[in-house]
């Protein structure tokens, strides 16, 4: 005859505390739901803003230019950054790095080949790789190489798609753009060479046509006029682009800051913060609910104290009693967490479908990490419960 918990069950006086038990179940459910939703939204935000972020490795990257005014227009030396300006910027404590956007010193034209009858004067720029938000492995060039990888500003593609229909040109998607080859005509010193340019990536941060620095250095030497190339734009790496000292310094120098991009970065931080906060709140609710539940268990054990004590006295093992007593709540925990997971799944589907209109960066299904947290929560609830009951029963012994 196997030892059964069935005759023991009526000895546990739980009936009269139904409302407090239901409250703790509901609390646990809400807490778990909040936590799971916060984690899923946090993951969503990371996926959505991965490409749009101006932050990289914990730094803000922003570009500055000199303010071209009525007085300075036409005076190159006043509108370009000299080495002394760069050195001065580097000395500031709130600036972690400065890199000039190197421009072409020769004539560049772009043509799209026979398929799209499009030809335009163009400019090329180069920037240190560590300052670029999306650097694919193919973004490199060596002398002798005919093809040149390009990182194009996302805004440029958008502008192209705006004016293309009016010009009788086809509108193109990102995917198509990356598969197209364009001809880069480099002219200077009475020679011309044509390279095949391919868009390797799009940048949301840098409004430019970027080529590898090695290519531009080589081309400037090959086709350039031989003068010192001063930068019209500088990229600054800073811990906080909204640092008042930093902004005051730039104002004092009359440098113009590309502020929009910092706002995007800040928004991401704020959204991250909100969902982290929501996650922490959810976790606190879970802890609170578990505590409430532990009070309920303590109450049940206190009310059933005499019966439990007698069972222990006549030879029942406290470990067996704790195990079987705790086991009763496992289906409850599993139901609560599964319900929360199901609601999170529904919310994620609705968010993806109705709010994000099935954007490919997101999935309609919840992330595996959320499932993992659900499983961890079930295990955590069972273990804390079992330990509490065992402790209370050992105390009765």
């Amino acid at each position, binding site marked *: 005859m196997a030892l059964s918990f069935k*005759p023991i069950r009526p*000895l546990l006086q739980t009936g009269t505390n139904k409302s407090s038990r239901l409250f703790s179940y509901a609390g646990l459910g809400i807490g778990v739901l909040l936590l799971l939703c916060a984690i899923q939204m946090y993951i969503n935000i990371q996926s959505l803003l991965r490409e749009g972020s101006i932050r990289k490795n914990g730094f803000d990257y922003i570009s500055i230019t000199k303010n071209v005014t009525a007085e300075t227009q036409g005076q190159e030396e006043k509108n370009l950054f000299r080495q002394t300006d760069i050195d001065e910027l580097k000395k500031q404590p709130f600036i972690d790095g400065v890199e000039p956007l190197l421009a072409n010193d020769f004539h560049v034209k772009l043509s799209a080949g026979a398929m799209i009858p499009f030809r335009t004067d163009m400019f090329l720029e180069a920037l240190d790789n560590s300052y670029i938000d999306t650097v694919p492995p193919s973004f490199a060039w060596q002398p002798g190489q005919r093809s040149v990888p390009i990182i194009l500003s996302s805004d440029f593609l958008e502008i192209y798609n705006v004016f293309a229909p009016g010009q009788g040109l086809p509108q193109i998607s990102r995917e198509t753009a990356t598969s197209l080859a364009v001809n880069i005509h480099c002219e200077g010193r009475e020679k011309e060479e044509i390279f095949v340019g391919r868009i390797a990536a799009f940048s949301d941060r840098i409004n430019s046509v970027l080529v590898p620095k090695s290519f531009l250095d080589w081309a400037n030497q090959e086709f350039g006029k031989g003068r010192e190339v001063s930068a019209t734009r500088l990229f600054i790496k800073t811990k906080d682009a909204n640092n008042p000292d930093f902004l005051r310094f730039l104002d004092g120098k009359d440098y113009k800051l590309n502020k929009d991009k910092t706002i995007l970065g800040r928004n991401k931080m704020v959204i991250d913060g909100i969902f982290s906060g929501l996650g922490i709140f959810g976790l606190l609710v879970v802890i609170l609910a578990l505590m409430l539940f532990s009070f309920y268990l303590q109450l049940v054990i206190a009310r059933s104290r005499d019966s439990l004590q007698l069972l222990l*006295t*006549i*030879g*029942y*093992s406290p470990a067996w009693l704790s195990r079987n007593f705790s086991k009763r709540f496992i289906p409850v925990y599993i139901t609560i967490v599964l319900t929360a997971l199901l609601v999170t799944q529904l919310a994620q589907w609705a968010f993806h479908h109705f709010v994000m209109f099935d954007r490919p960066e997101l999935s309609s299904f919840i992330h595996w990490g959320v499932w993992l947290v659900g499983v961890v929560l079930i295990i955590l609830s069972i273990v804390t419960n079992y330990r509490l009951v065992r402790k209370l029963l*050992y105390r009765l*012994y």
Partner: protein
Amino acid sequence: MQLTIRDLLPVYFEEERKKRSEIWGKEIVFQKGELTKIIAPSGSGKTSLMHFLYGIRREYTGDILYDQQSLQTIDPETLSGFRSSQVSIVFQDMRLLPEQTVMENLEIKRQLNPYHNEDKVRQMAERLGVGSKLASLGRTCSYGEQQRIAIIRSLMQPFDFLLLDEPFSHLDNRNAEKAMELMLEEAAVRGASIIFADLERIDFFPFTRLFYL
């Protein structure tokens, strides 16, 4: 199994007691198969001794050993193992579950380590005159009935030692004799020992050892 007491004295008793008692302060080894009678007048610590021997209280100096294991340091799991298979007890205050039926009370004990089948349980209840009470709630039984049910409950398991703490305090002589007869039979079947503490000598307990507490 062997039960040993060594220099035992409740912490609330003065040392003086050791001189007058044949139990307190002495070293005694109880072996399987012995029938031990402990005569203890009121206030001499009879219930304390039984609770100490069963391991539910530990306010004593000295030591009690189940085989070589001290009850002062034994872990609850091991002790519950002893209680379900080697040591059984009839409490003076019966200790039944008041809201369960008599049969449920007996079954809760029996399922722990079944020694008898259900029919045998019914036979025992009939024999002690509580057969008609099996479906009644524990709290509705009289003290005398509760005492007989507690006796039957103690016989539901295998044991080497049966501890009796004034088990007949609410029974008349006829019923007490019947109950004693049943317990002696059950102990004999198991080759077990009975340690019987009571206020005075009882003729129908054929003790092999006698101590004055």
